[in-house]
């Protein structure tokens, strides 16, 4: 395994910023076209009204809320994983953290957009903000939707800062390696960074505090998103298990998203010397653990409902197990449980390709899971008069596809202006403290340490 020198680290990681190939423009055009199509669909919905969506009584929550929950879940990839790995001082985190933190920020932004899309009249979004008015809407701090506002904004602010702070030294590197206008821009972004011991120490202390603060915030965000459901008297929603179940699912899908992003970056930015198979293997193991945890929660939820034998809940239960939603349900089980268990459980399959295949499965499975939590219960509530069906319409499908394209677009643009792997952290990993070097064994040669 090669250990790149410091000048080479600079050159390799700054190459995407300083050189632009035709592929970059192609990707921007491709993802931009999808995003544009999504915007057209959204504006059509605003112009023609909500009637062009499939949302109608009694199923008022469909694709949009599914996407909201899904993207907030994906956002758990970054900050949470990065914070945990930082706190336990896992050396192999160094090339991974920024890739992950970026996912968090963009996924949160996309996720937070869905309540606006779902409003139908986004210009009235300020009604969600806590401000005094005669409508008496805002002081209702007993509503989970108001909790969402606080939780998502705190997490987004924290995640943006958690991403930006360790970028400051890397902005200084770009400043030193560039000329002209680019040098001026990056010079301003570097905030006068020089690399004094005081600056390094303050930065590391700040990252430590942020890591400690951001973990409970991340857990709270998805717990609060789960409260949007579990606080409502809807069959199979009103359950205490939703908090941890949602958090486990969020981390699960987040890891899958991170693995896919890392594999794409490795391939297209030629980062083979930085993103090693061992990084994928370690994340694959984490994904396996989260997959087992997810399976445990699903089993719990289903078994308790089954034993409760409450008619309204059983109606939803059988809808998903063997009636109209059964194909989606069993696809979800295969994607979220069987596929990761086989591919990540058997060491021979725990390759980069295996991890990516399992991750795509998990992404599909977790989106289906969110859909199956949201839609079937709303179509089979306690009284038969409130039974109904939901069929997503082209506008909703276009907007959903556009958000995936938007994620890719934002990621590509970010990788164009910021080193996607933290340069200084990578360099710090190349020079570990002597006290951290364990004695050499046959299984663990010293050369493996910096991973």
């Amino acid at each position, binding site marked *: 395994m090669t250990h790149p020198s410091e000048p080479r680290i600079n050159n390799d990681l700054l190459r995407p910023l300083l050189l632009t190939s035709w592929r970059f423009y192609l990707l921007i055009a491709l993802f931009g076209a999808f995003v544009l199509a999504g915007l057209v669909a959204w504006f059509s919905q605003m112009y023609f009204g909500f009637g062009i969506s499939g949302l109608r009584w009694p199923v008022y929550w469909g694709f949009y809320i599914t996407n909201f929950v899904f993207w907030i879940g994906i956002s758990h990839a970054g900050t949470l994983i990065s914070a945990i790995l930082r706190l336990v001082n896992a050396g192999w985190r160094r090339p991974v953290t920024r890739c992950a933190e970026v996912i968090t920020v963009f996924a949160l932004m996309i996720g937070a957009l869905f309540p606006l899309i779902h409003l139908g009249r986004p210009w009235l979004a300020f009604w969600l903000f806590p401000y005094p008015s005669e409508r008496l809407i805002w*002081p209702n*701090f007993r509503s989970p939707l108001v*909790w969402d506002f606080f939780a998502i904004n705190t997490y987004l602010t*924290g995640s943006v*800062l958690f991403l930006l702070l360790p970028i400051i030294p890397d902005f200084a590197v770009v400043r030193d390696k560039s000329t002209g206008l680019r040098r001026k821009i990056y010079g301003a972004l570097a905030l006068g960074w020089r690399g004094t011991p005081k600056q390094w120490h303050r930065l590391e*202390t700040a990252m430590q505090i942020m890591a400690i*603060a951001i973990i409970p915030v991340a857990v709270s965000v998805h717990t609060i998103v789960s409260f949007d459901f579990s606080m409502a008297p809807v069959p199979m929603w009103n359950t205490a298990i939703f908090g941890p179940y949602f958090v486990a699912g969020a981390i699960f899908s987040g890891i899958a998203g991170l693995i896919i992003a890392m594999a794409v970056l490795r391939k297209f930015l030629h980062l083979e010397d930085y993103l090693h198979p061992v990084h994928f293997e370690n994340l694959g193991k984490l994904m396996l653990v989260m997959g087992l945890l997810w399976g445990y929660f699903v089993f719990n939820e289903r078994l308790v409902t089954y034993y409760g034998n409450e008619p309204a809940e059983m109606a939803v239960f059988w809808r998903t197990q063997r009636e109209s939603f059964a194909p989606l349900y069993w696809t979800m089980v295969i994607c979220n449980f069987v596929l990761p268990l086989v591919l990540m459980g058997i060491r021979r399959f725990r390759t980069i390709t295996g991890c990516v295949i399992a991750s795509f499965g998990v992404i599909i499975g977790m989106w289906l899971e969110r859909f199956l939590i949201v839609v079937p219960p709303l179509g089979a509530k306690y009284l038969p008069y409130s039974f109904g069906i939901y069929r997503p319409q082209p506008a909703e499908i276009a907007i959903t596809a556009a958000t995936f394209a938007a994620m890719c677009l934002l990621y590509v643009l970010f990788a164009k202006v910021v080193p996607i792997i933290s340069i200084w*952290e990578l*360099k710090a990993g190349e*020079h570990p403290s002597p006290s951290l070097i364990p004695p050499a064994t046959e299984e663990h040669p010293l050369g493996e340490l910096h991973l």
Partner: protein
Amino acid sequence: MKAVYGLYPDGQSAQQAFNRLRAAGVATRDITVLSAQPMEDFEFGNLDKATWMWWFACLGGLLGMSAGFGLASLTETSWPMNVGGMPVFAWWPNLIIMFEMTMFGAITATVATLVVSALLPNRSRTLYDPEVTEGKILIGVENPPDGSIPDLERTLGSPLGARVKTV
């Protein structure tokens, strides 16, 4: 600005230069150290370590929690609503607002402390060499007393692999 500094390929030689400067009578606070990564394994990488950042983070958290409590309690009592038979001021849901605001306060206080204590003060200092980015460690003295420059150059140039510059 006048300055004399050496660029060193590794931590050991930088530490030697640092020690020699101090032995030559230069006060620790007058020595400038710059590196492309944290160098906490060496003495020169542990300058200015004392910080109030943890306390400021706690203070920010306390302020955030108070703000959360104030926001929830004042508004709920000012615009009383009956929600599901809960009390007008209900502790359980308000704890969520207070928690989020606590964390928000702690995070913003941490970042504010970092900016104020480590980034803003450095704007007036100018000694820098882009070779630091390439992995070199800079040890130097800004605005040295007149006549001391040749001695400083000798001191900084003695460790192995050193390159001394005067600006």
